[in-house]
């Protein structure tokens, strides 16, 4: 487990260094994820230890958002002033994004899966 955590931190560190030295708009951990993905593709898959550790960490991904979410208490004022446009915008826009993305993806998959049926 410690070996796997060390590996994850090394890739995060590499990602941070690359993001900062090249001044990229993408955060370090996302670059770290891409690098680890490339390493797994080269190596032919993760070790059992890395797979178990990743699974343990991702099973409780929700927990990791709790501290930032609690920061809502810093914004009482603006939230109570503008709660209506914020609530309606978040609700409708999120539903629209999920529905539209899913419909477009399903349509494009069907088209690419059956190119001979298309006229």
């Amino acid at each position, binding site marked *: 487990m410690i070996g796997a955590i060390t590996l994850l931190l090394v890739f995060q560190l590499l990602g941070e260094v690359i993001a900062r030295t090249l001044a990229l708009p993408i955060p370090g*951990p996302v670059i770290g994820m891409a690098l680890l993905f490339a390493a797994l593709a080269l190596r032919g898959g993760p070790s059992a230890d890395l797979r178990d550790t990743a699974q343990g960490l991702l099973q409780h991904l929700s927990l990791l958002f709790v501290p930032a979410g609690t920061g809502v208490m810093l914004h009482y004022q603006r939230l109570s002033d503008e709660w209506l446009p914020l609530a309606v915008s978040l609700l409708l826009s999120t539903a629209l994004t999920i529905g539209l993305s899913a419909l477009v993806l399903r349509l494009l998959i069907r088209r690419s899966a059956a190119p001979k049926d298309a006229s």
Partner: protein
Amino acid sequence: MTPQLGEAWVYLAASPLLGLTMTLLAYQGATWLHRRSGGHPLANPVLLAVAVLVALLALTGTSYQTYFDGAQFVHFLLGPATVALAIPLYAQFDRLRRMALPLLGALLVGSLTAALSAVAIGGLLGASEATQLSLAPKSVTTPIAMGIAERIGGLPSLTAILVIATGILGAMGASFIYRALKIEDDAVRGFALGIASHGIGTARAFQESEQAGAFAALAMGLNGLMTALLLPVVMPWVTG
């Protein structure tokens, strides 16, 4: 309060132990409720835990800063967890490669819809310009969204809250939308939720299946990238 209890409080208020333990306890309670509800999407663990913590902090008069001194250890794990998303992603490598073009098409539509519809609806209902600009990157994972908000003239700390609210809303509502639209493919369900609701949507998708989780993780990463590239170009044109 007795003097001894007062002393214990002085110690706890100054040490990271309390904030960290409270976070874990609130989360344990929230996941217990979530399980008791049979994994119902409306019993979202992030929402429940945040509600309990905000109430506790308000009751004890504890500042967010004091709380975060302890909770930052949990917050820190977001970095390694993001890197760890490479592992389920790799497990779906073959399917991802075959679906590359449909995924990119859906990503472009989803990314623009997420940003422009939020700004348009906020604007129509009278949100201030700073609030509208803070809404634009709401579907993107927190660190990228805060960076984008800063670049386009929003308020990064407000954006962080809107991002988390969007994540919770998507995780709560997606299964209802999918049922109405008869979306059954786990890859599609995961990918659309990842575009709209980043990491919290991804956490929800992993509860459905490993495949849905992997596609959500991919969508989260790609949408972060796409929005970071598109918004600084598109927004000045939208707000005039």
